[in-house]
Every structure is written in C-alpha cells, then in structure tokens.
C-alpha cells in the first residue's frame, strides 16, 4: 500500500519535472500563448478489436509537434475505441503507444500530464458553472494555463455565460465549455473525439481555429470525426478505419 502511494507521488514528481524541463527549453508558457515543448506520439503495431470486429491491426504511425493525427471512418468504424486507447482510457489487444519513444504504460502519470481529452461526453457537471467546472480542471492539471478559466471561457465565446449553471446552458454552450478545458490544462497533446457535435457553424469555425493555434504552438492534435472540417494548410497524418482493417 505505502509502495503505491510512494510510486504515485514519484510519478507526479517525474511528470512535473518533464513539464518543468519543457518550460526551460522552450519559450516560457504565457498562458495559452506559450509554445509547447517538442513532443512526439507514435503507435506501434497496434491491434484493436471491438468484440468480433477488428478495428485495426499492425497499425504503426507517428505524429510530431505541429502535426494532426486524423482518425477517419464512418459510424462504427472504431474511431472512438481507437482514440480512447491512444488516450490511455482503454487497452488494445496488442502493440503500444509511445510518447517520445517511451511506451506510455511505463509512466502513465507523466503521459496524463501532457494530454487533454474531449470525448463524446463533455465531462462537465451540470450543477456547476463553467468557471467552477474549469477551476477543478485547473487544479487537477500539473501545468495549467496561467491565464485562468475566465480567459479560456472568453476565448470560446462564453464570456457572458461563465457564471450560469451548465445545466441551464445549451448543448452547444456545454460543448464550448468542454473545449475551454483544452486551454485550461495547457496540455501539448489534445484528443478530440467528435468535437463538432452540437456546435453551430461558428462553433465549428472555433474548433478549427483552436486546432490551428494549438498546432502553431507546437502541440499535437488527435482528431476523430466524420464531419467535414477544414484542415487545409495543416500537417495531417491520416488513419483510415474502413470496415475491416486500418490502412
């Protein structure tokens, strides 16, 4: 038991060290405007099954700072299953995910310190206001943005609604609150699973802008969507998940 606690504390210290080193090597973090340290994310011989259905096998690819990994496929192709594996929320049958060449399973805490995830569910509490939700997010992050939740909410167009209960907000506004979490955590790797759901035309444009800014700062985005999104001019590594095996 005590060993687990010591290990957990050690992992947090290690993760803090990684974040600290990146701040020394790169331009200092100035909230969302700071540059991220160089990172790379790679998949090696990944094999994933969902029941009897093979989502992918021998999937090997890599993305580096400033690049976007686009998981493409129709409904049921397994995009969500794959992105959950990449984020460390689920296990693959075989293969591994590596951060900077090191398997993420060797230090999940350090990995969790550099990722931010927006999934199908928004991950916000309806009983709390957007600011209250993001305040907890900031506390849980190891390297949160210095500009705070209010600034993140302003960026996603929720300045006028930051003190209303999330339960009173529209589905699109709740989605924007979830997107603001990406800015608050200040993580270099974003996982976005169908981020355009519930968003209007302007909201979809916001997502594109956020992704562009993130990549320009040296971040990585892993995007799973079947909806049209403008990725012109971005360095995109595409993974197609047809009915059968990944290419």
């Amino acid at each position, binding site marked *: 038991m005590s060993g687990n606690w010591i290990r*957990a504390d050690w992992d947090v210290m290690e993760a803090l060290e990684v974040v600290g080193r990146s701040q020394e090597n790169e331009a200092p973090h100035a909230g969302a405007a700071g540059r991220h340290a160089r990172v790379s994310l790679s998949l090696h011989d990944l094999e994933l099954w969902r029941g009897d259905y093979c989502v992918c096998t021998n999937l090997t690819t890599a993305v580096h700072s400033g690049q976007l990994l686009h998981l493409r496929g129709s409904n049921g192709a397994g995009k969500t299953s794959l992105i959950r594996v990449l984020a460390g*929320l689920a296990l693959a049958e075989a293969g591994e995910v590596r951060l900077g060449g090191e398997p993420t399973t060797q230090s999940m805490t350090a990995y*969790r310190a550099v990722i931010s995830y927006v999934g199908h569910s*928004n*991950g*916000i509490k309806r009983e*709390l206001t957007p600011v209250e939700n993001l305040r907890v997010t900031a506390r*849980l*992050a190891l390297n949160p943005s210095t500009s705070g939740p209010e600034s993140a909410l302003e960026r996603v167009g929720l300045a006028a609604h930051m003190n209303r209960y999330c339960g009173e907000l529209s589905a699109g506004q709740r989605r924007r609150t979830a997107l603001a*979490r990406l800015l608050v955590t200040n993580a270099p790797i974003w996982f976005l699973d169908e981020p355009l759901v519930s968003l209007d035309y302007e909201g979809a444009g916001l997502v594109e802008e956020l992704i562009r800014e993130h990549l320009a700062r040296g971040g990585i985005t892993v995007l799973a969507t079947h909806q049209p999104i403008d990725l012109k001019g971005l360095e995109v590594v595409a993974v197609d998940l047809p009915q059968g095996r990944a290419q």
Partner: protein
Amino acid sequence: MLKELLKRELLIAWRRPGEALTPVAFFLVTSMLFPLGLSPSAHLLRPLAPGIIWIVAFLAGMLGLQRLFRADYDDGTLEQLLLSPRPLTLIILVKAVGHWLVTGLPVVIGGGVVAAMLFVPPRYIVTVVAGLLLGTPVLTMLGTMVAALTVSLRQAAVLGPVLILPLVTPVLIFGAHSTTLAMQGQSPAQAFEALAAMFILSVSLLPAAAAVALRISHEG
C-alpha cells in the same frame, strides 16, 4: 487540489439537495416505522434498538452510494478524473469523504434522535453516536469500493448490495454490539477498538483498491 475537489463535491450536493437528503430521510422515516409496526413499548424496542439503528443506517448509506461514481460516469467527468495526472487514490478518498459528510454525518447525528425514539437510555446515546461516527465511514469506504467495481454495470443496483453485504457484516456486528454492551452495563471499549481498527484499515487501504477497481471496470 484536494480542497477544490472536496468543495466541488459539497457544492454539487448542496445544489442537488433532494439526492443528498434522501439517505438521512430514509434513516429517520424507516426507524420510525419500527415502533409503529412492532409496538411502541420500551420493553420490546430497547433491546432491538442497536440492531435496528445499524441495519437502517447501512441501508440508508446504500441509497446514495450507487450515485457516487455513476453520475460522474454518465456525464463524462469520471473520464476526466481517470485522465488526471494526480493520484486517483487521493481523488477517490476525497470523493468518499465528501459523500460521507453529505450522507453519513447526518445519519450519525440522526442516530441520536432515533436512539431516543427507540427508548435507548439518554446516557447511552453518546455510545450510539460514537459507534456510528466510527462505523459509518467504514460503510462508506466499503461502498465506495463496490461502487467503483460496478460503475459500468447495468445491474449495479442489484449487484452492489449483494457484493457489499458480506463485507459490512463485521461493522454491523461490532457497531450494534457496542451499544448492547453499554446497555448491559459492560464496557464497549473492545467493540470500539474493533471499529477503530476497521476505520483505519478501510481509510488507508480501500481508496487504493477502489482506484484499481475503477480503472479495471472503466477499461472494460
């Protein structure tokens, strides 16, 4: 970080008062049914009081426990907690403490009222309250572990009580025994020591077990 998480738990409970008050309301109302159903006689109710208090306190605790992780699972905040670089063990401990403060502490206080209603002599009411103060956190911690294990299961409402029943039996025995001993003029110290040992063990071990259970059940 821990303070902010605890504040969040309490704030959510405050803004969802119906859910938070259900366990203590159940505890008080169900306990009131015994004098009505059996007999309002002190001679009959007094020896049964310790057992009634502890069984109803356990059942009241079970009411809210299924929601401990289920609400977070449904709205996606559980995923965010699992992806946090902070120790999940500590996060679970904070959630359990918040849950006990909202649902367990009112039952401890209500325990004094119920004891008086069941004709426990006033000088032994403090024994009832002290026993509940030591025992209800253990019930909460055991419930937390079972809730973590069953969070993604549809049958959690049925499976949870079945899994937890053998685990809580010692707590119920020593909890009820402490008051019975006191009412018989004997020292309840040994029963309290057993409850204290269970309290220390559960608070130090079960959050880590619940963290593992939560990751396993969520990965599935």
